[in-house]
Structures are given as C-alpha cells and as structure tokens.
C-alpha cells in the first residue's frame, strides 16, 4: 500500500478512536433492536414479515444509520481545507491528496461494514421474529446484496460529505444531509444527485424517473466518482 494512503488510513483510525466507533456501533444496534421489536409485533403474515424486513433495511440500516454514521464520522475525522492543509504528514512532504483519500477510504469502509452488519442483522431479525410457518429464512444472496449495497452507499455518502465539507465546511455537510433527506426522498429528477434515492431503488423501493436497479447502482457509483474528483481537485497535492 502507498505510504501516504496508509498514513491517511491510520490517521483516520486514530481520529475515530475505538471508544467513538464502539459507541456508534452500539447505538446503531440498539436503534435496530428497538425498531425491530416494535415492528415485529405487527408481523402476521409472510408479506408483512417481508415488509418489516424491508423497513428495517431501508428505513433503519440504509435510511438512518448509514447517512448519520457517514455524517458523524466525517465530522469526527475533520476535513476542512485548512485542517487538511496543515496535517502533519502532508506538511512534512507526504502527498496530501493520497493521504486524504486514505482517510476517506477508511471512513467509507467502516461505515459500509457497520451498515452491512446492521443490514444483515435486520434480515436476521425479520426472519427470527417471523413465525416458522412464514418461511422467511436468511438467504446468502440477500446477505451478499446487502453487503455490496452497503459498501457502495457508504462510499457515495462518505465521499459526498467529504467534498461538501471541503468546499463549504460544516454548513456544507449539514446542507447535504438535509438535501439528501428532502430531495432524495422524492421520485423526480431532483432526486437523482442524492444517494438516498438510489439506495431506496436498490432495496426495492420506488426509483426516481423509473430507473432500473442497475441504473441506481451506476448512479451511486457516479456520485462517488464525481465527489472524489471534486474532493481531490480542491485539495492541493
């Protein structure tokens, strides 16, 4: 691994810290458990059990945990231009862009792993709370799908938050979160630039402009690439 990238990853790991990461993971699990218990009481048929699974996945794991964790992690790691310019490693001659990408990569990977874990637990919770006669067993295909969607979603959210932070500071991150919530929940053309709309499509929800599922994945990838490009463009090497 490139030394600058490795130092960026290590720097982000130190900045996040075990206590913060553990607290966030625990809070996410408790949130899922609480919602799971409340939703589980309403399960009466196979269809309703599947709906509960979907609500836990789309509503809690991907709708709440993923954006909020990416938002909080980007604040924790810090990414204002002034901060990145004075980072010690870059100050002593490390490549600032590669270093910063290392930091973003760790946050994206951590957010993706946490969301995937929460998503898998949501699937399991849906299966476990459903009556055995409803035949809702966990499936490997579902697990793999949840994992790659979580990683792609985390990458798009993390890079977008990082770019917003770099260009407009904390206000930029907050505005992105609000816009993602408001505009990403719609199904028109305005929903296209926001990860929420495409994650919803990938999880079986209504797609903006009736896009196909694979188009939603491509849109998430495009958001990630554009945000990464803007991020590295703004930051001097």
């Amino acid at each position, binding site marked *: 691994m490139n*030394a600058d990238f490795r130092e960026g990853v290590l720097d982000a790991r*130190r900045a996040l810290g075990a206590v913060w990461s553990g607290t966030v993971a625990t809070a996410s699990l408790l949130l899922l458990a609480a919602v799971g218990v409340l939703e589980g009481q309403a399960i009466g048929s196979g269809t309703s059990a599947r709906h509960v699974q979907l609500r836990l996945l789309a509503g809690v794991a991907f709708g709440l945990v993923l954006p909020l964790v990416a938002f909080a992690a980007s604040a924790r790691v810090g990414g204002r231009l002034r901060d990145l*310019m*004075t*980072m010690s*490693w870059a*100050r*002593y*001659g490390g490549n600032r862009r590669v270093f910063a990408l290392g930091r973003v990569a760790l946050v994206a990977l951590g957010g993706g792993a946490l969301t995937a874990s929460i998503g898998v637990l949501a699937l399991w919770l849906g299966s476990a709370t459903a009556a055995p006669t409803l035949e809702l067993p966990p499936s490997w295909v579902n697990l793999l799908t949840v994992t790659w969607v979580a990683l792609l979603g985390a990458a798009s959210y993390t890079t977008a938050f990082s770019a917003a932070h770099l260009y407009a500071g904390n206000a930029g991150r907050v505005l992105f979160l609000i816009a993602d919530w408001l505009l990403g929940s719609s199904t028109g053309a305005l929903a296209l630039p926001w990860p929420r709309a495409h994650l919803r499509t990938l999880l079986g929800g209504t797609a903006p402009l009736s896009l196909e599922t694979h188009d939603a994945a491509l849109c998430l990838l495009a958001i990630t690439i554009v945000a990464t490009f803007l991020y590295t463009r703004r930051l001097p090497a």
Partner: protein
Amino acid sequence: MSGLVLERVWSTPLAGVSLELRGGIGVVVGDETDGTGELACICAGVRAPRRGRVALDDRAPFASPATRRSIASLLPDETLPPGLDVRGWLAPLEGLLGISAATVLDDTKLEPTRALAGLTSAERRTLALAIALAHPSPRLVVLHDPLASGDADVRQRTLARIADLGRGSAVLVTTPSLADARRLGGSVYQLDRGLLSPAPQAAWPGGSSAGGAVVIDIEADEPRALLAALALAPTVIELRFDETHGLISARGAELEPLANAIARAAVDARTTLRLLRPQTDDLDAARALHTGSLHAAYAAARNRAQSGVIVRPPQGGSNER
C-alpha cells in the same frame, strides 16, 4: 543556489508581500498579528496564498510534496496527530525526511513513550524545532520564533545550527523579538500590519534604543505594587512616579529589555497595564517606535512573561492578552 520567491502575496493579514531569498539568513520582524505566522505557514507549504505567487525553485510548496520534503519548518501552532507517542510519530518521518529519530529525541530530552496528546505547547514546538534542525539537507528553512523557548544553552545551540544551515540553504526566520533578530544576523525585514519593508536592513534602526536611553510611561491599576516590582528589575535604570496622575516613568538602556522588565513586573505585581507610552524628543525615533518595533517588543515581552498581562498598544490598538 536554491531560492524562495514571493511575489505580491496576499493572504490575511499579508498585503502584497514580495520577498526573494536566494540563500543566507533572512529575518522578518513583526508580531503574529502583523502576519509573521501566516508568512511562515505559506513558505512552509501548509497554506496557499489567496493571491500572488510563492515558489521554491519554481515550485509552489503548498502544491508539491517533493518541495515540502525539502523544507524544514517550525510553525506558529504545531498540531500533532492524536493517539501516537513521540517515537511512533518520529518513525515514519525518518523515512520521509531522512532525519534521525535518536538525534531528535536526544535534542528534545523527551521520553519516546510520551503521548503526543500530553505534550505542552512548548514541548510540541521544541519537538518540531528539533525535527526542523535535524533535517539533513533542506533547501529552505522556515522558522517562526525559534528562540522563544528553551534555556540559554538551547538557544545557543539553535543559533549555531541556524547559522550552519544558513551557509548551505535559504533560512527565513520570523520573530517578534528585535533582540532575537540581532542575534540571528542576516538581512532584517520589518513586517508591519501585513506590509513587508521593501528592502532588507543590515542593522535594526534606532527605534530599539531611541538615541540611547529609552523612557516608557506606564499606567497600571495598582501603580504602587508595580513600582515596587519595577524597583527590583536591574534593567530599569530610573523610576519616577507622578502620584497625581498615577503615571510611572521607567528608564532603561534598550527598549526590549525594558519592555520585558515591565511585563515581568506586571506579572509579579498582579496588576493590569492600562497604558504604555514611549517618551522621545526625536521625531524619527518616535516614528520608528510607533511603527511596529514597540509592538514587537511588547509581543516578545508578553510571550516570554507567559502570563495574563494586558498591554494596551500606544496607537489606539486593541487589547492584547
């Protein structure tokens, strides 16, 4: 020969600063509010100028990692990564800069296992200074107030190393201290509220001595306590106290030691200074005193007193703590 070039650099508070340093030692005297810290950051490559051009051998330090590797620097505010100890921080820098961690540890006398988060501001600066001075072959050395801390031995060693570095590369030192500027030698520039003097001065103008003795009028909340403390300062040659107006006049041989003595006396007497005003009959000397040198001397005194002395500059400036 390598060289640092700044062309009409604007960056708050710097206002169109131009400077060319091809080698040797250049000293920029001014307070941090004048922009010395910003200048050091721009030259070290941790900040990009808002406008203008900065280049070391035709490459901008803020945009070129290779150029930054060849810069040894001490910044006004040294932030270190959290979660590491001193040894863990120095290890990757050995590969990056070619420095010897053992030399740095030896110079700083810091325990290798000390957590970076537990270092005081002075220790962080000491560590950064040791890293800068251990650089084997810098093309540019940028040091902000390198003589501000440390005992006499450390200062002497720092001076010797800076002189040594000045023989092979360009060295830019920014400092608020006139005395330090004189100790460092080289070309002296004055940075006053963002404006850099256009030409270097071989020796500092007479503002530092104001034609021999310097007299400063002082008003303080507790003038008697301050008077008692000033009476113990060997730098103060003569003291007068106008009881009606509560005005103390202190005479000394040079401005900076006198300002230091006043600052220390204010700390000892636990009093707040309300006024510091130099007395001089010489118009040129008065101008020199009022255009920065006195401010710089106050800043140096304030930094070294390291306490809550409130100094009100003589020309309508804001309070400084």
